[in-house]
């Protein structure tokens, strides 16, 4: 394989510091690739695709009425992070998750950060996912976000920026593990001497973290994964994690609440459940408290949580931290709770509900990226520079009508990574992002799997990495060393 014609086009490229100049930590992969010819490479790519299809590593496409399952396209060229860079990310992510958990505990208890005027109270109280009915309730070990999947990007200078925090039910970790397995099969000889850190013990750590929050400190708690069911797009992942941890995967209809305790309905009668790794959002988790039309949830689950008979990961009410208006305040939270400067930068953000910012946003709609405060997955977004005029006008009306619901950011020129392009039969630069997975058992017990999900926008020039909109993924290598 020949990468001599590869162009970096004024973007920050993960592999090449300049055309023809490979960064040292990519050297080994480069050598291995050069030893392959086109046919061998394509065979490996096909073998990996087939592997995913056969193993059923797929997600469900909703828009398609046949409920088609697709594989998440996988690119064989790995994304590599050297040791020092990873150490920096780790420090930054740990700082952030500690601050976010402090913030959530605070706003559901004393609300000091609001009283001290660091965050205007109305922003928190008006947040769509702020659960006022949980003010004053305790959660096990004061942990709100147990599993976090912050999205990181790199700008044109290679600076890492946090894009969002995903403190509810971040998905994708199964791909981290499956991608690694696929890479090991495709390049068995490369791994022993490439110095890649293993990701395989994620499930062990997840289980340990979940057992740690069991009510009354039980030695042998019953842990379950709560899934919306087989038709959920991430069902494969729910199953995968349950299997890897060796715990049951349950649906709402398998559970029953009696006397403030949660039971699952088994062939031998009712069996009590102590910890639920729930992959159902707050809104759907208990129809007696939240959306009464939810068929996925368990009536009474919240009663059981309040009574302290069952622990949830993540806790109820974390969605407020995913509000993009709260994102704006995370650096302030870090300073307020930890007295530290933020290690990781984030994207400069304007709040439409602040008059000065709003004027700036409305005057520059064609230059900014506007996001709804509570949407995810690339929806509810305006990409100003690429948008049609009527779309811009629609956003203008929406922002003026409900400024609290919008923020704006300057577009970031996302870093690129050489990615195999079947149409041209060569590597081309494609934009990528990165989602590491953080397990939080307390400020001194945080574990981040050395790796993560690198998503890649497979279409030329595209910035959208979501699996539902033409995204793919790469194996992410964190190295023991720096080259």
């Amino acid at each position: 394989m020949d990468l001599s014609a590869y162009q970096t086009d004024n973007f920050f490229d993960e592999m090449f510091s300049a055309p023809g100049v490979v960064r040292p930590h990519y050297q080994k992969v480069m050598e291995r690739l050069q030893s392959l010819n086109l046919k061998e490479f394509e065979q490996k790519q096909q073998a990996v695709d087939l592997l995913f299809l056969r193993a059923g590593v797929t997600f469900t496409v909703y828009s398609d009425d046949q409920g088609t399952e697709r594989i998440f396209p996988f690119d064989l060229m790995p994304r590599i992070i050297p040791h020092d860079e990873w150490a920096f990310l780790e420090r930054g992510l740990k700082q952030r998750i500690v601050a976010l958990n402090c913030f959530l505990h605070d706003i559901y208890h004393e609300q000091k950060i609001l009283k001290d005027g660091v965050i205007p109270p109305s922003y928190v109280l008006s947040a769509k996912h702020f659960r006022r009915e949980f003010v004053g309730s305790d959660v096990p070990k004061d942990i709100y976000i147990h599993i976090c999947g912050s999205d990181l990007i790199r700008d044109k200078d290679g600076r890492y920026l946090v894009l969002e925090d995903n403190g509810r039910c971040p998905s994708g970790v199964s791909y981290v593990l499956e991608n690694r397995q696929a890479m090991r099969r495709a390049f068995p000889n490369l791994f022993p001497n490439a110095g890649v850190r293993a990701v395989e013990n994620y499930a062990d750590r997840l289980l340990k973290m979940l057992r740690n929050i069991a009510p009354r400190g039980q030695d042998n708690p019953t842990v379950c994964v709560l899934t919306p069911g087989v038709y959920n797009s991430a069902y494969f992942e729910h199953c995968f994690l349950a299997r890897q941890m060796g715990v049951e995967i349950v649906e709402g209809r398998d559970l029953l609440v009696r006397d403030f305790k949660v039971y699952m309905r088994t062939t031998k009668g009712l069996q009590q459940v102590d910890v639920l790794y729930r992959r159902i959002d707050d809104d759907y988790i208990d129809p007696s408290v939240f959306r009464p039309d939810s068929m996925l949830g368990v009536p009474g689950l919240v009663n059981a949580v309040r009574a302290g008979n069952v622990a949830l990961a993540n806790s109820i009410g974390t969605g407020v931290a995913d509000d993009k208006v709260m994102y704006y305040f995370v650096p302030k939270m870090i300073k307020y709770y930890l007295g530290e400067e933020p290690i990781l930068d984030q994207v400069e953000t304007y709040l439409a509900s602040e008059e000065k910012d709003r004027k700036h946003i409305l005057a520059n709609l064609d230059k900014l990226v506007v996001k709804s405060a509570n949407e995810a997955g690339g929806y509810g977004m305006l990409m100003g520079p690429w948008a049609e005029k009527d779309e811009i006008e629609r956003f203008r009306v929406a922002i003026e009508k409900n400024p609290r619901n919008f923020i704006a950011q300057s577009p970031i020129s996302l870093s690129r990574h050489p990615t195999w392009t079947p149409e041209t039969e060569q590597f081309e630069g494609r934009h990528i992002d990165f989602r590491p997975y953080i397990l939080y058992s307390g400020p001194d017990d945080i574990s981040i799997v050395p790796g993560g999900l690198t998503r890649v926008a497979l279409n030329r020039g595209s910035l959208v990495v979501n699996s539902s909109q033409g995204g793919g993924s790469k194996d992410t290598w964190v190295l023991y060393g720096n080259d």
Partner: protein
Amino acid sequence: MLSRVADSLYWLARYIERADNLARLMEVNLQLLLDFQDLDDIKLREHWDPVIRSTGDEEKFYELYEEANSQTVTDFLTFNKSNPNSVIGCISGARENARMVRDQISSELWETLNNCYLFLKSNDAQNVWDSGAYEFYDRIKDYSLRFQGLTAATLPRDECYDFLQFGRYIERADKATRMLDIKYHILLPSPQDVGGAEDAAQWIALLRAASAYDAYHAQYLANIDPVHVAEFLIFSENFPRSIRYCVQELNARLHNVSGCPLSKYSNDAEKLAGKLLSDLTFSNVQDVINYGMHEWLDNCQERLNEIGGATYQAYMFQKPVDLAEEIQQQQQQQ
């Protein structure tokens, strides 16, 4: 084990066994046609009608097709997606259930089933079909055998295994009664009335469909005798596709789940299975012929259904929760 999971495991195994039996039924019947002389429409219909009847989906068949011939029956029982009991319908059903319990079964089991499903959906399936029905049905049997082998080789002997095996054997027993029923008219109280070369060919076909041809010969030597064939396929103590063997197995699986000794019963399913097993143990083929073969097989099917129903009640059925009532109760406790 979750009740829902037990239910899915049971259906997963049943569907695979059903697809396997369909493949056997079709393969043998298509082969049989090759032996017929002077094949006309009437003869064809006489041949296929009982086959369709044996599947129990006669009504549905005649809604979709005008008459029973090789082409329509094959289509209905193999590729028709609107027939949940076609080969493709069964494999899809098995896979749907397997997806629900993927965390319970080994990756090898899941991948085998998924591969079978992908094969049926691919162009490859059409190619194999075009090169011959025999190859095609063989492929399906092969997948089923691999599934059975992997069940034996990769699963711990726990509840999961028991429910899978229970599903398999109850389906196999049911299909055995249906296959025999196709030929019941030969075993009217005086079997001498019918016979001839064509009938012999059909009895051989029946044995082949059950992979029982060699085992039968080992026991009865060369003689193909309808009474012996029926005796073998119903009463054999050790042939794994005889009705008695299947009931013995499913009874053992039920007792394994409950932990209740074989000499007692702890629920209706065990009671019914034990009674059926004892009838199969303490009667012989002459009793069946005197009772009327068709009636006897019908009764057996009925009792298998009851065992399935009682098992569902014992382990899988959960009283549906009245959501509205549940929500109201929980709100009162808040």
